[in-house]
C-alpha cells in the first residue's frame, strides 16, 4: 500500500528539482543512453538493411515490374492501346509503323532480344521471332522503308498473328499481375485471367506439397528429437556431452556429403537394401524403393534438420527441474501422467521454437529435395531455383518467393494466435 500511486496527491505533472516536468527531464537523461545504444547496433542495422530489407523489397518489386515492354516499344504501346484484339483483325499500319520504328531503335541498342525472351514467357515462339526479325531489321530505315505491315508479315508470319499483338497489348503496362497469376497456375491472357491449361498446372501442387511435407518433416523431427533432447537434458554431464557431439555431428559435415551419403544408403543397390536382402527379409528382385521419392526427401531432411529441433528443445528442457516430476509423482501421478501433465506442458515452448525453425527451414529447402527427391519429392524452392538460374524468369521466381514468404508469415501469425509467440523459447 505504501507505493500505491492512488495515494499520491493529484497535483498534475510531477516536477524535477529545477522545475522542468519530470518526464521531460527523464527523457533528456535517457536520450544520450538511447543514442549510444543506437550507435552500438548501427552496424547490425545497416547490415540487416542491406542484406535483408533491400533484397526482399527488390524481390517484391520485381514480382510486379514489367516496364521492359513500354521501355523497349514506347511508340507501339501508345499506338496499340486503342486496338481491339477481340475482333480478330490485325492492327493497322499505324501500329506496325510504330513497332518498326521502336524495333529499329531497339535493335541498334540490342534490346529487342531481351524483350523477346520476356514475352516468350507468355507466348512460346516470340523469342525467335524477335531474334530473327531483329537480324534483318538492322538494315531497315524507319522512314524510307515504310509502309511496314506487309514487310513485317513477310519477315515472319508471327507478325501476322493476332495473338502476338494481343500479348504485346496485354503486357504493355509498366506493372503486371502476370507473374503472380502464373505463380498460382493462372494466366493473364488478352481475354482476361484464366486458369493455366490442365497439363501446365504444377505450382499450386508444389506449394501444397511443400507445406505438407514440411509439416511431416517437422512432425518426425519432434517425434525423433523429443526423446533425444530429454536424454540430453537428464543424462549426467559427461554422457550428455558425448550425446551432444553426436547430435551436432551433422552440423560439421557438408550438407552435400550427407545428402549423397543417404543416396548410397537408400538406393536399390544400396547398403540398407543389401542388408535386407542378405538377411532374407526382402527378395532380391523386390528391393525397396526408398529414394528419389517423398520418403527419401522426408528421411534425409529429417536427419539434416533434427539438430535444429533438438537444440531448442534441449535448452528448454534443461530448465525444467527434475523436482517437478518428483513432485508430480509424490502427489500420486503415474509416470505417464507426470510426464504428460507436468513435464510435457513445460517443454512445449521448446517444441514450438524447434518446430518454427524446422518448418521455416524446410519450407525453403532446395538441395536435398533436388538430390534425393526424384519427381514427387521436390519442393517449390526447386522450381524457384529453376526460374532463377535456368529459365531466367526472375519475375516469376520473385512472385513465387513472395508467396512463400506470405505463407510463412501467415502460418507464423496463425501460430501466434493459437499457441502464442510468447510461448516460444530458444533457451532458459
Amino acid at each position, binding site marked *: 500500500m505504501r507505493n500505491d500511486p492512488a495515494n499520491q496527491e493529484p497535483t498534475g505533472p510531477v516536477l524535477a528539482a529545477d522545475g522542468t516536468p519530470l518526464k521531460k527531464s527523464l527523457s533528456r537523461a535517457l536520450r544520450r543512453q538511447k543514442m549510444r545504444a543506437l550507435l552500438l547496433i548501427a552496424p547490425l542495422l545497416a547490415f540487416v538493411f542491406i542484406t535483408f530489407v533491400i533484397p526482399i523489397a527488390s524481390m517484391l518489386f520485381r514480382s510486379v515490374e514489367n516496364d521492359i515492354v513500354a521501355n523497349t516499344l514506347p511508340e507501339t504501346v501508345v499506338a496499340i492501346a486503342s486496338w481491339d484484339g477481340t475482333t480478330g483483325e490485325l492492327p493497322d499500319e499505324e501500329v506496325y509503323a510504330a513497332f518498326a520504328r521502336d524495333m529499329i531503335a531497339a535493335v541498334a541498342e540490342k534490346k529487342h532480344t531481351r524483350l523477346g525472351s520476356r514475352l516468350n514467357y507468355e507466348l512460346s515462339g516470340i523469342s525467335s521471332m524477335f531474334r530473327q526479325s531483329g537480324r534483318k531489321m538492322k538494315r531497315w530505315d524507319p522512314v524510307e522503308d515504310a509502309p511496314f505491315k506487309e514487310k513485317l508479315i513477310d519477315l515472319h508470319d508471327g507478325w501476322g498473328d493476332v495473338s502476338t499483338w494481343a500479348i504485346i497489348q496485354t503486357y504493355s503496362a509498366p506493372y503486371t499481375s502476370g507473374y503472380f497469376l502464373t505463380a498460382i497456375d493462372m494466366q493473364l491472357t488478352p481475354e482476361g485471367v484464366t486458369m493455366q491449361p490442365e497439363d501446365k498446372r504444377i505450382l499450386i501442387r508444389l506449394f501444397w506439397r511443400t507445406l505438407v511435407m514440411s509439416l511431416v518433416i517437422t512432425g518426425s523431427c519432434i517425434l525423433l528429437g523429443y526423446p533425444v533432447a530429454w536424454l540430453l537434458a537428464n543424462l549426467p554431464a559427461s554422457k550428455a556431452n558425448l550425446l551432444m557431439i553426436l547430435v551436432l555431428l551433422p552440423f560439421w559435415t557438408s550438407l552435400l556429403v550427407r545428402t549423397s551419403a543417404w543416396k548410397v544408403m537408400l538406393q536399390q543397390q544400396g547398403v540398407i537394401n543389401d542388408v535386407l536382402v542378405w538377411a532374407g527379409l526382402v527378395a532380391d528382385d523386390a528391393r525397396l524403393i526408398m529414394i528419389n521419392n517423398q520418403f527419401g526427401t522426408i528421411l534425409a531432411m529429417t536427419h539434416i534438420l533434427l539438430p535444429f529441433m533438438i537444440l531448442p528443445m534441449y535448452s528448454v528442457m534443461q530448465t525444467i*527441474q527434475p*523436482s*517437478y516430476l*518428483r*513432485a*508430480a*509423482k*509424490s*502427489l*500420486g*501421478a*503415474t*509416470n505417464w*501422467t*507426470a510426464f504428460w*501433465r*507436468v513435464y510435457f*506442458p*513445460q517443454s512445449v515452448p521448446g517444441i514450438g521454437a524447434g518446430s518454427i525453425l524446422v518448418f521455416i527451414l524446410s519450407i525453403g529447402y532446395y538441395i536435398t529435395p533436388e538430390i534425393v527427391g526424384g519427381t514427387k519429392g521436390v519442393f517449390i524452392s526447386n522450381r524457384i531455383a529453376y526460374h532463377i538460374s535456368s529459365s531466367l524468369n526472375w519475375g516469376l521466381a520473385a512472385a513465387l518467393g513472395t508467396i512463400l514468404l506470405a505463407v510463412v508469415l501467415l502460418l507464423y501469425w496463425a501460430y501466434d494466435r493459437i499457441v502464442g509467440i510468447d510461448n516460444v523459447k530458444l533457451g532458459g
Partner: protein
Amino acid sequence: MIDKTGSEGFVSFDHVQKSYDGENLVVKDLNLEIAKGEFLTMLGPSGSGKTTCLMMLAGFETATHGDIRLGGVSINNIPPHKRGIGMVFQNYALFPHMTVAENLSFPLEVRKIGKSEREAKVQRALDMVQMGEFGGRRPAQLSGGQQQRVALARALVFEAELVLMDEPLGALDKQLREHMQFEIKRIADNLGITVVYVTHDQTEALTMSDRVAVFDDGRIQQLAPPDQLYEEPMSSFVAQFIGENNALDGVVQSIDNGVALVKLATGDLIDANPINVSKVGEKTRVSIRPERVEFDMNRLAEGSHTLKAEVLEFVYMGDTFRTRLRVADNDEFIVKTRNAPDQVRLQPGAVVDIGWMPSDCRALDA
C-alpha cells in the same frame, strides 16, 4: 499425541544401506523408528546422507539393502505415486504452467476425486495456509513465502498421513523463515500428521522437532529430543554441530566419582563429565557450552580446577555479551554472559580465571 510406546513405529528404517557407485556407502546401516504424529528432523551437513534417506522414503531412490516400512508394510517395491506420501521440495516445485488452485487440484485429479469435492478441498487447504484468495494466480506471481505456503498446502491437500519436507525454508529470508517454522509446526500439530523434515539448519531443527536425528557420514550420530541433544550431546560431532561449543583436547588423567580429570596439552588440568571415556590415558575432547563458563570462582565447588584466560575481544550483542578468550592456546574460546546490571564487561588484554561445573563439561571422543 505422540505415541512412542509401540514396538514398531509408523515409519521404520531397518538396516537400510544405500550406495550409488557400488563402492561407497552413502547411508550406512540406518535404523530408525518414527512414531505416528511425530515431527522428526533429519539434521546434518550436506553429504551426510539425510536427503538420501528422505528420497528413499519418498521412493525416488531405492535402498541398496534393508527394509523401509510404512505402517508396518514394506514399501521398497511400491512406486512413489502409490505411497501416498506428501512432499514439500526445497524449491517448492510448484508447476509453473498451472495456477495455484490447479496445482492443488492435481493430486486430487489423479485420485479421480469429483470436481465439487476437489474444489472444496482445495479451498480448505488454501485457507489453512491463509492463501485462500490466491487460487487464480500463477506461482511466478507469488512471493517466496507465498509459494512456500502453497507448496505446503499441496502436500497436505490429499490428506497424506506422512509429509516429507526437504529443506523447505532454505530459500526464505531469516524473518520469514522463523515465521514459517511456527506455521508449519502449528499446522502439523493441528492435523496430527507425521512429518519427516530435512534441514542443515540446527536452529530450525531445535525449534520445530519432537526428535532430531543428527546425521554424519551416513550414520545417525544421535537421535534425541532437542533439549537433550543440546544439553547432552553424546559425541564431539553433535556437540560441535548443535549450538555453539568450546572444545579443548586433552588426555584423561584420572576418573573419580564420576568426574574425570583431563590434562590439556598445555599441562593445565580441568574437571569434566566422562561421557565417552572410561580409561586413564585415553585421548578426549572436552566440550563446554559458552553460557556455562563461569568467571565468578565463588560459584564453583571447592577444589575445582580453573584456567587462566586472556580476553581477546568483547562484543556487545544487546541481550548478551560475547567474549572471545585465549584459553590453553585456543584463541576461539567463547563465553556468553547475560546482560545483567552486575555483569562485568571484560576489556581485551585482561587476564581472568575461568571455570565450570564438572557436569557441564563433557569429555567426549577425541
